[in-house]
Structure formats: C-alpha cells, structure tokens
C-alpha cells in the first residue's frame, strides 16, 4: 500500500485556506444548512410559531398530495420558469452579441450599463414602479399601445395576462446580469477561430452556430442553471403587483408557501411545501448536469 505523502508546506497552505473559508462556512451553516435541516423536522409538526409544536408525523405530506391549489401554483411556477428563463437567455444572448459588435468603447460601456442597471435596483422597488406602469387605464405602457393603434391590455387584472406581466418584469430586471455574463464569455472567444472560419467560407450564421455557441456553452450552462434556480423562487413581483391574483392565476409556489407559513401560521405545512420545491430544484439541476455533458464544451 502506497501512502500519499503530503508536502508539509501544502498542508499548511490548506489549513490557511480553510481558515479563510471559515467565515463563509459558518454563515452558510447557520443561515442555510441549519434552516434546511430544521425545516425537515418542522415539516413533521403542526406549529404556529407561538405555541409549542405538535408532532403530526406525515400528515403535512398527506395534505400536500391532496392539495389542488398546490398543483395550480406549481403549474404557474413551471410556466413562469420556462417562459422567463427561455426569453431571458435568448434576449440576453442577442443583446450580448449586438453589444459585442464593433463599436466605440464608450458606447459599449453605455449599453452594457444601461441593460445592467435594473439588476442593481431592488426587486420590490421594480415591482412598485411596474405596478403603476402596467395600470390598465392610466398606465404608461397601455398609453403607448393605444398610440400605436393597438388595444389596451389588462396586464395585472386578468388571469390571461397576469403571469405574462410577471415574466415581462422579471426578464426586464434580470436580463442585464446574463448580458454581462455573455459579453465576458464572448470576449474570451479567440478571434482567430472566426478568421479561420471566414477563410473556409462560413457565413455569419455558421460562425455563430458552430463557433460562438459551442465556445460560449460553459457560460450558457451556468446562466441557465442560475436562472432556473432563481426563477423557481420568484416571489417579489407577484407579491407586490398582483398578490397572486386574480384568483390563483399568478400565485407562484414560493408565494403560496409564504402565505401558509407567515400568514396562516402553519409553519409545518409551509416547510413541507418548501421541501417539495427543494427536491424539484435538486432533481432538475442534477438532470441538467447529466445532460450538460452532451452539449457543454469545455475547450
């Protein structure tokens, strides 16, 4: 048996590294791991925060399986995730490619900060502003729609549009993050690849499809995983703009669990719903990791 010998210097370095990681690890344990484990236990209890918890075993889970509104909220969330993530990634990619085109550095800086600006504003503030912009009769958006000869749209007051409106605001708010991510990725693609393709007679579409996309795929992959996780947890926009309505049409799963935990004082059931969401996000992320081997290219 051969024992790996550890270089004493390396060992010391590793110790120092752990020391530096300690603050983050402590924070992560207290604020993320701790509550996660706690919520597993809480999901087995009936607990209203004030009185002592009552053990109910799997009653919350049984209720979860019979909850029809949970299904509606999950279906809203899935629709939101698919719409928001796909529109977000596609638009961000287009804008990033456009910004990456030949232009003056100042102009590029301007465009980049313009799309990035909404990312830095708090989601609550964004929601309040959009709430007024999307007002059916007196909102700015419908004002321009009418000017263009189109019909006004009941953005937030009809179940046909409420979810779309939330997608719209979410995309507007988070687009900039991906644009910056993609432009960084684009700048890392060596120019000579495009030049070689040009000599081989490739047109613009070919170089985009066969050079840009594969070379950008690690960034794309990261962006998609990140956007998916964020989209599953969407809360602020429906909470402020529609309160989940009309009816349940824009109630997302996190809004639903918030209502159970923090409005109806049923922490047990809220934890159960949270765990179900955790499992879904975990499974989806694992699936993506698995499929990523097929399309992500780590040059």
């Amino acid at each position, binding site marked *: 048996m051969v024992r790996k010998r550890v270089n004493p210097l390396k060992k010391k370095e590793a110790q120092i590294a752990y020391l530096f990681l300690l603050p983050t690890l402590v924070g992560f344990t207290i604020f993320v791991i701790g509550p996660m484990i706690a919520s597993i236990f809480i999901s087995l209890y009936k607990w209203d925060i004030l009185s002592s918890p009552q053990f109910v075993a799997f009653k919350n889970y049984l209720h979860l399986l019979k909850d029809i509104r949970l299904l509606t909220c999950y279906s809203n969330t899935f629709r939101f995730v698919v719409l928001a993530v796909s529109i977000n990634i596609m638009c961000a990619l287009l804008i990033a490619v456009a910004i990456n085109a030949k232009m003056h550095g100042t102009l590029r800086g301007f465009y980049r900060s313009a799309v990035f600006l909404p990312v830095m504003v708090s989601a609550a503030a964004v929601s309040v502003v959009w709430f007024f912009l999307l007002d059916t009769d007196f909102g700015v958006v419908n004002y321009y729609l009418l000017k263009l000869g189109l019909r006004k749209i009941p953005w937030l*007051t009809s179940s046909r549009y409420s979810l779309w409106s939330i997608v719209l605001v979410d995309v507007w708010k988070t687009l900039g993050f991906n644009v910056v991510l993609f432009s960084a990725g684009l700048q890392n693609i060596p120019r000579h690849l495009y030049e070689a393709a040009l000599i081989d007679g490739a047109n613009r579409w070919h170089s985009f499809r066969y050079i840009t996309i594969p070379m950008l795929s690690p960034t794309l992959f990261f962006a998609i995983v990140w956007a998916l996780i964020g989209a599953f947890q969407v809360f602020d926009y429906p909470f402020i703009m529609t309160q989940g309505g009309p*009816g349940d049409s824009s109630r997302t799963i996190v809004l639903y669990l918030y209502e159970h935990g923090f409005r109806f004082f049923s922490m047990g059931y809220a934890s159960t719903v949270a765990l179900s969401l955790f499992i879904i996000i975990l499974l989806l992320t694992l699936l993506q990791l698995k499929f990523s081997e097929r399309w992500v290219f780590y040059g």
Partner: protein
Amino acid sequence: MERLRGAVLLITVVVLSVVTVCLLGSIAVGKDIVKLRFVYLGSAADIKIWKDLADMFHAKHPDIIVDVQAVPATTWAEYFDKIATMIAGGSPPDLARIAIEGVQLCATKGLMMPIDDYIARDKEELQEFFDDVHPALIQAFRYEGKTYMLPIEWNNMVIFYNIKIFEKNGIPRPPRDWTKDDFLEIAKKLTQDFDGDGKIDQYGFEIPIQYFAGAMPWIFNAGATFLTPDWKKPLVNDPNCVDAVQFMRDLIWEYRVAPPAPATLDPLYAHFSSGQIAMMGGGRWPVLQFVNAGMYDFDIQLWPKWRDQVTEFGVGGVAIMQATKNPDAAWEFVKFTTSKESITYWTKLGWCVPARRSIAYSEAMYELPPKHAELYYDSLDNARPVPSPPQYNQVENIFLRYLGEVLANERSAKEAMDLCQKELEAVMQ
C-alpha cells in the same frame, strides 16, 4: 511587534471603556427608568406621530421611555405574524398598536393581556373617557368576557368625492339617504371620455380587491352580514351577499363606471388625487394621502343606501403584550394614548377618526378637509364592526381570492361565493 503591541493596547482601552459606559448606562436605566418597546403597523411616514406621542408621554413620566418601532406590512395578518416572530425570537414588544382585525386572533393566540383589572383599578380616572366614547367602539375590544384594549382611533367607510368634478358636471352634493341607484346614476354621468378617442379618461368610481376597504361596505348595505353576527360561521353565499359582489362586478363590466380592480389601495389614492376617478371609498386615513398629494377639493358622504344603510367600521388601540415585564408602565402609556391631549394632537394631522366624541366634533377635525367631518361620528349609531374572527387572516385571504376572480370577470358571483363558502366553512369549524 511594536505596532502589534500598540494595537492590542488600543483595543483593550476601547473595549474597557465601552464596557464601562454600558455598565454605567444600565445602572442608570435599570434603577429607575423603565424602557418599553412599542410596535405599530406603518411606515416611516407616520412614525412622527408615534414618536411625538412617546415624547409627550416621556415628558409626563420621566421614568418611562417608550421606544417606537415601525413594522412595515401590507396587511394586518402580515403584521401580526411579524409580532409573533418577534415573540418567538425572544424579543417581544411590550406594547403594540392593534386594530379590531387582530383582537380575536391575538387573544386566542395569547399575545395580548386583558386589561380588566387595570380598568377596575382606575375606574374613576377613566370614567371621563368612557363617557366620551361611543359604546360600539368599546364593545369592539371585548372578546369572551374580557377587555383587551381601549379604543383611541377608528375608521369607517364613507364615499369620498371630488368637489370640482361634481361642480363641473352640475351634480349637487348627494344627501345622506342617497341610494345605490343614485350613486350609479352619478357614477355613469362622471365616467367620461374627454377627447373622444374611445378611451375613458375619467371614471366615476374604483373598487380595490380589499376586505375592509373594498367589498364589506357593499355587502353590509346589500343586507348581508358576511359571517353570522357572532362571527362563528360564514354566510358569503347568502343571496344578498352574492348580490353585492355581483354589483361590484357590474360596476366594472356591465355599467363600466370603474376601471379593472387593483389588488391594493395605492392606485386609488393616485387616481383620485389626479382626478382620474370621481369617487372612492375610504375612512379618514385617505385624507393624509390626498393632502400630501396636494389635493384638497374633496368631501365625504355616507355609503349609499341599498336594502340597509349601515356603516362598516374598524377600530384600533394600543395593547399590552402578554410577554411584557413592565405591565404597570405599559398601562400608563395606554392611558396616555386615550387622553384628550394625545388624541387631539394627531386628529389635527388627519390620521384617523378620534374615538372621543368631544374631539370628533371639535375644531381639530376641521383643520383639514372634508368639510362634513361630523359624518364620521354621526354614523356610529348605525355601525357594524368589520367581521374579524380569530381566523381573520385566512378568511380575508380566501375571500379576496374569489372576489378577485369575480372582479376580473372570470367567475360568476354565485359560483365564486359558493366555493368561498365551502372553503371558509372548512377553516372556521
């Protein structure tokens, strides 16, 4: 090494001095001065009122400091939850402003302390207060034989109207006994398209998807009670209640005198202040909103008569929390909030309707519009509190979900209220 030693020395000195100051401070505070933590639902906008009250109180009781803390929340349910979280987290407030919506909820959860013993003790001192306050307000804070608060402020639902729009269209001030048909007639007249582009520029009315401030006044005047009078069972699919919900839907979709219903009240303040809607419902709290927006040309009238003409009201006070270690000091603050001095102070600022009759009819009420401010207190003789059972937080949520569907014209009033009834029955059993 030299520098390190210097740093250590400096840190030691700083730590020691901080500790000393803290110790001295705690001795000073701990001995004679009682510190009370007071929370209220609100934002930075109204913290001035409470801070000033705390200062006024401190001037009278130098041994008690009231530390005011705003708890931002959009609904009472959310606010009570935050208080519950503070208690569970080990830093319970001593005092909290609580409205009727939370009385039964907080009482059944054991958050509030009954104050009957204190009232009995200070009976003579309080007699003048009880004589000055309408019994309906005092009754609202009793639950299962116990008293939890003394009313200091309240709001009922009246119709606000834009005086200028009324005058421009030659509509006189409606009388007290105007009916819902009169109301509809006026709303139709005031729904106008100024430039003929097919887009309405001014609506007669607007309805928020709200419980107290949206649906309940219509439900009460339609002759329904929403819950049984003891608030034990739901009655939302009662034909009169369905009628009321249907009427609200019709205002938007049939008569088209109101824009699509928003989920909160904020758009209504903005629309009314800028003349985009001619009428809206509210208590006295919108006055401050309008005045801050530079809008002074408004007046009020009672909610229009239908099968009945009752006034829906909600009332608030300051509760002593069960968790307090200084109930005696807290009680002193509660008594102060019921004093003429404190109520007069905020009445002038246009916050709520004062619980004291003598102030509700005094000059203090007329420093700001509306001109007919006497309507508020007059209406109490035929008033009914907003239905606030212990399950209030769930009842509100369920009802608003169905009301939202009806007002979005996506479910019939009858079907929605039948489903709502079923869900409420499950929650309230």
